[in-house]
């Protein structure tokens, strides 16, 4: 039981909990206590330090901006205005609050606001659905598309859209990069022929990819009912992120162990068998390393792309809050930053798990 749970934990990338489990089972208490301290407590301590520095930094910025405001009021309008400004800032009236880096507690409040907001929107959605139920029934009978919810998406909906975009983008990247990678990996001349293309397009910025995709999609897709912003953003994400997989696949395929290749020759396998029985299994670890990089790149470029393509995901959430410039906008942006970071981390863990699962040499990475 114990060994099994440790194995599972390691497998999903939570190996740092291993000493704790051994400790609970009273196994080598000294050694495991030190290990637990190293692997779990130290990171926890560093998180606390980070929070403290953040807190201290944000209060320092707050005080500095508040003092600036008061001094400015003093030089421009005299002492009474300065006193008024001080009183106003102390009272917490939002009309004169410094608008700077939010503190951890403000960010937590915003997180709660966003959650509440999500619940309210869910209620509204349900009410809307009920309201249009009869209309939709009739529209369906007439063969028309049903009326869908017209309100704003909640923060969770936006996370959903972003995940969907990344998933579609990565799938596209995989479908393009793996086959091409195998083909150019198998042939040295092709690899040389395509190398310049890869080297030139790999470093191109996500924004430029987006504009390029925009130019093409705009012309190709004329049906106004299709969700163009989603199509544009997922294709751009895929194109930005596919390079790591492409390069790794071609590398993996071209460096397959000579012995395996010779075995294939001895068995007189045809091309298809050769690829699926020998080349692919042997290069899987490399392909998955590439895919893992692809997923993290996809998640990184997503925000910029969504922002420009007006796709209703986290990117547009961040941008809209920046544009709103309301008192709690900064805190909401930081919430989004953490959510983005945490989801990125989780995605990477998932990819690592899948990679471990798929490769023979477990735990190598």
């Amino acid at each position, binding site marked *: 039981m114990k060994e099994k749970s440790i194995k599972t934990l390691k497998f999903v990338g939570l190996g740092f909990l291993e000493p704790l489990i051994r400790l609970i089972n009273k196994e080598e208490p000294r050694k495991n206590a030190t290990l637990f301290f190293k692997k779990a407590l130290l990171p926890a301590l560093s998180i606390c330090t980070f929070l403290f520095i953040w807190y201290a930094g944000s209060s320092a910025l707050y005080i500095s901006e508040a003092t600036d*405001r008061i001094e*400015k*009021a003093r030089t*421009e*309008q005299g002492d009474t*205005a300065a006193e008024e400004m001080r009183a106003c800032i102390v009272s917490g009236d*939002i*009309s004169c609050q410094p*608008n700077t880096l939010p503190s951890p507690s403000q960010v937590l409040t915003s997180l709660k606001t966003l959650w509440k907001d999500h619940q309210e929107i869910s209620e*509204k959605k349900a*009410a*809307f659905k*009920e*309201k*249009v139920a*009869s*209309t939709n029934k*009739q529209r369906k009978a007439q063969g028309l*598309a049903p*009326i*869908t919810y*017209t*309100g*704003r998406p909640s923060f969770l909906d936006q996370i959903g859209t972003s995940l969907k975009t990344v998933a579609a983008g990565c799938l596209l990247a995989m479908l393009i990069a793996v086959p091409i990678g195998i083909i150019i990996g198998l042939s040295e001349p092709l690899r040389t022929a395509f190398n310049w293309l890869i080297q030139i397009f790999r470093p191109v910025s996500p924004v430029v990819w987006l504009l390029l995709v925009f130019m093409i999609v*705009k012309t190709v897709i004329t049906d*106004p009912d299709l969700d*163009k*912003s989603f199509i544009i953003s997922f294709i751009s994400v895929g194109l930005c992120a596919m390079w790591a997989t492409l390069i790794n696949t071609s590398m993996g395929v071209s460096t397959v162990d000579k012995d395996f290749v010779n075995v294939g020759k001895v068995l007189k396998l045809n091309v298809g068998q050769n690829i699926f029985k020998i080349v692919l299994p042997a290069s899987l670890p490399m392909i998955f390393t590439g895919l893992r990089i692809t997923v993290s790149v996809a998640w990184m470029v997503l925000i910029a792309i969504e*922002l*420009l393509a*007006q796709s*209703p995901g986290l990117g547009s959430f961040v*941008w*809209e*809050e*920046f*544009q*709103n*410039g*309301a*008192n709690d*906008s900064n805190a909401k942006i930081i919430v989004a930053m953490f959510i983005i970071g945490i989801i990125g981390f989780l995605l990477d863990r998932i990819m690592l798990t899948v990679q471990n699962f798929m490769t023979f040499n477990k735990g190598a990475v």
Partner: protein
Amino acid sequence: MIKDMNRNLLRLILVLPIALFSCGGGGSASSEEAAEETNSTALLIEKPQLTFGFIKLTDMAPLAIAKELGYFEEEGLFVTIEAQSNWKNVLDRVIDGQLDGSHMLAGQPIAAGAGFGRQAELITPFSMDLNGNGITVSNEVWSKMKPNVPVDDSGKTIHPIKADALAPVISEYKNSGKPFKMGMVFPVSTHNYEIRYWLAAAGINPGFYTAENIQGQVDADVLLSVTPPPQMPATLEAGTIYGYCVGEPWNQQAVFKGIGVPVTTNYDIWQNNPEKVFVMTKKFVDQYPNTAKAVTKALIRAAKWLDTPGNRPEAVGILSMPEYVGADSVVIANSMTGTFEFEKGDKRSMPDFNVFYRYHATYPFYSDGIWFLTQMRRWGQIPESKPEEWYHETIKKIYRPDIWKEAADMLVAEGKIPAEDIPATDGYKPSTTSFIDSNPFDGKNAISYINSFDIGNKN
């Protein structure tokens, strides 16, 4: 079939008040009584599910109100309202059909039909508001400009402030080798023409557009460049520009954050000038004529509600929701509730700063459109001379008071607006001199108006 659809609509209208109630919508009481009256003139809606765009500015209010108070749904329309990142994007998305309609700058549909920028057949059946813009300069420029501004006995600056006070500051900057840069929101935006008008009225050349150079900076004393409205305060703070012309709440935001001082509003530059319009493509209007009419009806009602005394505070609450303008309600309230704050503490009454319905604000007057055409010609966006008739023919393709009239007639029949709210007009406002330089403008004589300016292309 038609009977069936009508029954659907009727049922929908009956369901509405209940649904609104359950949403806890702010204006449920008023929409309830309205729904009871609606019966005879319900239109056959061809496309009930619509998406409209807007830019985060307070003058998008009619859209937010029509949605939040259920006016769209009473017309059988299910409308999603989406914030857009910039005006270019708005124009592209409307032309490409991703948006069914949008809040736009009055100049955008006109330029699209007059040969400047991307060309398309766009239609304006509804003018969204009058006034609502301001010109803000940075604190540094204001401190140099203030000594040139006349003051009254109590030491308060006398408005309107003309650009004459700014002229010495501009030469000072130029002499020290710094080009004087200001921001406006779009090449064909009202702001561009307003800030140019204001500067040129004081003999400052804001620069020309030519067929080869579409930056609009040929021979310029002041370099004007494009910045999206919500980014104006940040750009000013960063020192990239020394001033800007933009709509609300971004002038009040500058006062709030203490980064700049609004010096004049466009009410002083041209009294009751049209600002934003609602735009759909000609294709959409031809394909779905009833839908276009229903949208116009809902918007006219929203505008009326906005100008009904006592409703503005509620409107501010709606606009400050994050999906609409999203700025703090105190900031929005400053300009939406009849006051405007110039220097910090200098709050003045401006009852007509944001007009949505009074003075027939929603009616798309040809003469307003012609003013924009004359300014496009004046600054060279229309590079060649055009005959007088061209101005009238062009604007009649874009501005469509006929749709407005049909919608308003239906509202009168339904008892939602009084008959006197429909102006008796041929589409041209009478000649007026209510500009900052008192230069008379008559929409029927476009050519002579163009030739009347000292700075500007002539025909």
